[in-house]
């Protein structure tokens, strides 16, 4: 008879917490670039996310089919995280953040009061402007926002942003929409070291650059608290299937991080014991 042992991990995990907001899913999913709203809705469901990002744009409330984004997002279910994408100055980012808060206030969504801050420095690479980012972050924090701040993977800049009062620092794995994954894991680790020193629960989220599920798992294995992505799902050949893959990768990467990987070694170590082997073993 087989001995039955209850499968229960020794290492407990806690939900993702960002300044008092708690989420079981560590995947934050964007709502842009989908071929249609129906696919987006199914992909969000498959991703298991609880937070979705949106953009603020001039009134374009209906598409050609007479549909609006908000018709396809259950605002009672998802916490909406408005972004300041497309802003190249601190002043514009602050304006857009306030407009986003006003919209979410109208919807009665718990996302009112937080913002994914982006202040871009270059249209081609969409890399952040660090000076504008810190300037906008300071203004928004003073205005009562919880700021989740997109930045490069520069650990010094990440620290400055945290010092400015950001609720979460979100270093890019690689340029937005590039699908290159985490190009410099060492820098992400340095960001984590700096941001979590004396503050281990401070949330650090890899934002941007993910191309496939293994990129998400890798980011989570490094010890980040979450991953924010959009294009990798929206532009996959099968967005709903990719969303499923991302969901599992996020869970797997987190578990792998908590479980603690083995050290890498130059030589092999046999999993089956040599002791008791009936075969010829060189040198034994």
């Amino acid at each position, binding site marked *: 008879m087989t001995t039955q042992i209850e499968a229960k991990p020794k290492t407990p995990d806690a939900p993702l917490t960002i300044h008092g907001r708690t989420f079981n899913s560590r995947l934050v999913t964007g709502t842009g670039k989908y071929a249609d709203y129906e696919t987006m809705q199914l992909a969000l469901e498959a991703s298991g996310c609880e937070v979705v*990002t949106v953009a603020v*744009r001039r009134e374009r*409330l209906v598409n050609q089919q007479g549909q609006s984004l908000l018709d396809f997002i259950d605002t009672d279910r998802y916490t909406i995280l408005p972004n300041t994408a497309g802003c190249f100055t601190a002043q514009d980012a602050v304006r857009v953040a306030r407009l*986003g808060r006003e919209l979410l206030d109208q919807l009665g969504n718990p996302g009112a009061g937080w913002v994914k801050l982006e202040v871009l420095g270059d249209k081609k690479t969409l890399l952040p402007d660090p000076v504008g980012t810190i300037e906008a972050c300071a203004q928004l924090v003073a205005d009562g926002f919880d700021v989740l701040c997109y930045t490069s993977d520069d650990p010094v800049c990440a620290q400055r942003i945290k010092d400015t009062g950001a609720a979460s620092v979100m270093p890019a794995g690689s340029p937005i929409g590039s699908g290159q994954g985490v190009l410099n894991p060492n820098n992400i680790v340095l960001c984590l070291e700096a941001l979590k020193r004396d503050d281990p629960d401070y949330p650090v989220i890899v934002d941007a650059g993910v191309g496939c599920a293994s990129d998400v798992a890798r980011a989570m294995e490094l010890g980040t608290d979450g991953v924010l992505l959009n294009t990798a799902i929206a532009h996959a050949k099968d967005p709903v299937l990719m969303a499923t893959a991302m969901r599992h990768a996020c869970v797997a990467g987190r578990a792998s991080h908590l479980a603690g990987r083995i050290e890498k070694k130059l030589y092999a170590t046999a999993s089956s014991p040599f002791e008791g082997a009936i075969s010829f073993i060189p040198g034994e």
Partner: protein
Amino acid sequence: MQITVNGRPKTVPDRLTLERLVADQGLAQTACAAEVNTILVPKAERDAHTLADGDIVELVTLVGGG
């Protein structure tokens, strides 16, 4: 008077309220945030906000984004 709405010039009656402008655009029942001359005007204050000649109005909503 002449104002600008979402980047386009628009001729509107004098002393038009922001509330009326939003309604005229067909946006009264939808999630829509309004800004006049880069300053946010909360929904509750639109009725009391009278537009002036040359005002630049932005009416925005939420769209897909990452």
